[in-house]
């Protein structure tokens, strides 16, 4: 925290007499961040540094304990040279796109429809939280059965005489199936958070809108959407991050297959690091994912600064 930053903050304050007091206040508020910073610095940053170091080194189980040979960017180029990285990148973008869009829209729709105390709201919320809290191995296995050749969906299809659809083994469908299941698993989380934000809206605003004759759809569009904007921003970030990290569902349902059709970056990274035991290669793939997310992080940071200027 530099004094230069503090002076900048001070200058932006509107009321001059209280400027010094506000400046001290903002400084003090930053102190609130210290415990978390310390903790993260020790336990989260160190693994990140190790990841970065591994991505530019030759690290296998044999060399893990000793000094790592620096290999520059060859771990990265190896990924591109082997030819799989292109497919994996597009798989990842499709996957993250679906999970984010469906997860956010589904979560918001669920939150809006669950904000009241209509009958069954509590039960439904409980069901959704129950599902969300189940480990991916359970949820993934359930869907693996439901989507299988003799599962629920194909059995119903069979009643009408159609032949089964290979949701998980058709090379064109598989990625969508896994992404949709993953969105389904994420919706309860988004719903809970959106709901908390919606419940924070001052009831007076709703009353005023109703007095103005607003219909439910307008209520949603103008009152709710505006109020949940900061939450939407954060949930978008968190959902995208989740999409870029998620590999448990893929692991359980298709193991990246058939072939490599459902292999996304996090799954590839896992396979490279813990199946092929090439930690350097796996770290490089993870770093590629991090770089993609940095773009997102910058967008988020910029909009955060914009929203502060609006205050």
């Amino acid at each position, binding site marked *: 925290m530099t004094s230069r930053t503090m002076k900048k903050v001070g200058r932006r304050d509107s009321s001059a007499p209280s400027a010094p007091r506000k400046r001290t206040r*903002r400084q003090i508020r930053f102190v609130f961040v210290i415990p978390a910073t310390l*903790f993260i610095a020790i336990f989260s940053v160190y*693994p990140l540094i190790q990841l970065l170091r591994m991505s530019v080194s030759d690290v296998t189980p044999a060399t893990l304990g000793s000094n790592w040979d620096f290999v520059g960017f060859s771990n990265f180029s190896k990924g591109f040279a082997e030819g799989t990285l292109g497919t994996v990148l597009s798989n990842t973008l499709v996957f993250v796109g679906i999970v984010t869009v469906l997860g956010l829209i589904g979560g918001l729709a669920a939150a809006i429809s*669950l904000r009241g105390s209509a009958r069954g709201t509590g039960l439904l919320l409980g069901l959704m939280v129950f*599902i969300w809290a189940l480990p991916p191995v359970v949820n993934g296995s359930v869907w693996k059965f439901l989507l299988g050749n003799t599962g629920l969906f194909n059995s119903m299809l069979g009643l009408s005489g159609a032949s089964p659809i290979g949701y998980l083994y058709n090379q064109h469908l598989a990625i969508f199936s896994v992404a949709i299941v993953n969105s389904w698993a994420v919706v309860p989380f988004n719903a809970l958070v959106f709901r908390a934000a919606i419940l924070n809206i001052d009831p007076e605003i709703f009353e005023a809108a109703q007095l103005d004759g607003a219909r439910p759809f307008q209520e949603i569009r103008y009152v709710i959407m505006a109020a949940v904007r900061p939450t939407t921003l954060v949930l978008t970030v968190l959902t995208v991050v989740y999409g870029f990290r998620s590999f448990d569902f893929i692991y359980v349902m298709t193991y990246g297959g058939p072939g490599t059709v459902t292999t996304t970056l996090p799954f590839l990274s896992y396979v490279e690091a813990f199946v092929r035991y090439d930690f350097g290669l796996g770290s490089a793939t993870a770093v590629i994912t991090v770089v993609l997310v940095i773009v997102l992080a910058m967008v988020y940071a910029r909009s955060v600064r914009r929203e502060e200027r609006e205050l």
Partner: protein
Amino acid sequence: MTNKRKSGKVAPVVRGLLFVAYGVPIIWIVITSLKTSGQVFNTGWGMIFFSPNITAYTKNLHGALLQAGLQSIIIATGTCVLVLLIAVPAGYGLARTTGRIPTIALGALIILQMVPQTATVIPLFQVFGSWGLLDNTLGVVIADTALLTPFAVLLLRPFFRGVPIALEESGAIDGASVWRIFRSIVLPIARNGVATTATLIFLISWGEFLYAVNFFLSPGRYPLSAVLAQQITAFGIDWPGLMALAVITSIPILVLFVATYKQLRDGLTLGAVK
């Protein structure tokens, strides 16, 4: 009261769809838990009509399960408390400060979450090894906290930003210290967000499995999340057992949810804005 107003005709349809989308898998889980291994692969109507039995439950309800359950409670509670202790102030601090450093901090929090959890096991193993935290519940709690703090801070920040700054300013004018303002004015208003975050942290750390399996080194120390994974062995998967355990291990979560639901449901603002 806004809660009582109907949200139009679409809401019940959405609720109906959600009931199906989340109810059917749960029904499937419960049904499977009542089957024998052979019945799991019944096709056609045999999927729904079969003679149920509770072997999968009785087989798994034994002393070791209670021990694992206790371990899960300790880990989840400890993580929740520790995360709240450091993330709640941090979320507030980042909500109320501007400048480049907080912005960079937010970006860093996002990037930190991108480190695959599997990639953190080895460095943490070394750190815990040298600090004597291996085979130690506190070690797992610390690992889970490190995993979830960035997430919690990012999640809490918008809730703190939702607290009207006018309230804090009026508190300042009344002569309250920053800490006092935080405790007595800001926290009560942001409690929905804090409670929601706390619930989510508890749930996530309850189900966390990778650190628990790797950092516990002696028998009988695994929490429930690892017991669940035990149903998937090298030799075969006990489907009824897996589903029965999924039901059993989720019951404490349901209890927690029911207990806190009233709090999460009401969501009253204090009316102090007026």
